[in-house]
């Protein structure tokens, strides 16, 4: 997972927009984690091959950058996100069309099965995660914060209602959530680091392979 700051990524993309081929390769590496995240967190994540679509998205982005029809790095980010989303939608549609199933209940069942097959957490991971969250809740300094997290995440009580009930300002509410997330990350990194951000070998290898492909294609080794 790349951890380049946003300003650095913007600078790299700006370089690629000038036609700098080295910057273009770096752009592919820099955009990849974000594009992958859009696909992973999107509504169709369980219907698509995220790695494949990330590669396809980056192909389209690089073609567009080379065509010089975009002049602002921020428009490249928006274009990449929209492209990823549209490709995911099309892939999901295609997948459903290929199923000769018209019964909506069966489609639901199919979706469920796929979700189980592609479930990102094993039972052991799920248990570790539950342990980490239970530890986080135990560590919270006040009963009010505990109640806030449980009612917000488990009961689905909305923020305004919770702020009213618990006598909190919206800013304080956001701070509790932010601290909880940060603390959970620390606990997870200590107890089950693999749950912090499920890295895949392909996350590292693919950008390298793609950069190499573009490099070869351009300079014709």
């Amino acid at each position, binding site marked *: 997972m790349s951890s380049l700051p946003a300003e650095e990524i913007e600078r790299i993309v700006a370089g690629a927009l000038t036609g700098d081929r080295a910057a273009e390769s770096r752009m592919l590496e820099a955009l990849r984690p974000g594009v992958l995240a859009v696909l992973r967190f*999107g509504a169709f994540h369980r219907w698509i091959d995220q790695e494949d679509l990330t590669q396809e998205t980056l192909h389209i982005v690089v073609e567009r950058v080379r065509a010089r029809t975009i002049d602002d790095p921020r428009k490249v980010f*928006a274009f990449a996100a929209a492209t990823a989303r549209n490709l995911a939608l099309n892939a999901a549609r295609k997948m459903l069309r290929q199923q000769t199933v018209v019964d909506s209940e069966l489609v639901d069942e199919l979706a469920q099965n796929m979700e189980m097959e592609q479930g990102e957490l094993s039972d052991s991971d799920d248990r570790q995660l539950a342990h*980490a969250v*239970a530890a986080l*809740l135990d560590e919270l300094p006040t009963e*009010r914060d505990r109640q806030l997290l449980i009612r917000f995440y488990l009961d689905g009580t909305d923020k305004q209602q919770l702020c009213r009930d618990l006598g909190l300002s919206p800013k304080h509410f956001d*701070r509790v959530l932010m601290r909880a997330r940060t603390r959970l990350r620390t606990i997870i990194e200590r107890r089950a680091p693999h749950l912090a951000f499920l890295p895949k070998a392909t996350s590292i290898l693919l950008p390298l392979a793609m950069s190499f492909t573009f490099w070869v294609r351009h300079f014709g080794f």
Partner: protein
Amino acid sequence: MKSLDHNSFEEQTRLVSRYVAGDLSRSERGEFEAWLVASPELAAEVEMERRLRRGIASAARRGWLKRPAPVETNRDQRRWRIAIAASVVLSLGVVLSILVPRGEPAVPGKGLFAAASERRVASTVNVRLGNVRGTGGVPDVSVSLTDAPSELVIEPDVVVLTCPNGALELECAGGSAPQTPQFVEYEMDLVKRHGETLAWRSSRQIPVGRTQLSFTLRQPGSYDAGDYDLIVRGHSPDHSEVVARFWLRVSAE
């Protein structure tokens, strides 16, 4: 995009939460995802938000969460004040009714209160519904507008127990019986068949004792006569599904 660049951490937290909950509008989501492409570190925040949601749900499912006692709040205090005031008024009413000689006009409100109280107790109707919908063209629940209860308590038997890994099996690994509700939370919708309009939605609830659900529809007599679907929906952090559908008929006679 520009507007997101200078957001505070609080604003970022709020957006991440809304994004994971699926509460962003189409344009907000587009803007957020462009930001995600530009700031991969934001992906870690989104991931952690997802973990937090799933972790809390999983801990609750496993019975590891101690549900905190409600914190006394301003709202609670207001309720107490109202309750105390109501008690004082009621006591005064009772005292007056004793002191005022018989034959005098009754204290207004006393009779009404008692009648209302009895009616409330008498007019709650409990209905247990099996997980297989009734057949033969007969509604699962019928309510007459002329004799409608004040509350209709519906207890659908629809919670399916699964193994800890979510698998639907008769026997889990190690030979234990499935004990985990398939969904973390359940809710009920009342949908009028004519026009497919949502007439009522319950709050979400966690099954009590693993399988018991109880939804209270208040004043069923206030709904229009006609046929309705009672739809029970299960929710987990990343999936929701209709688990049962029943037929409610509100008749004019």
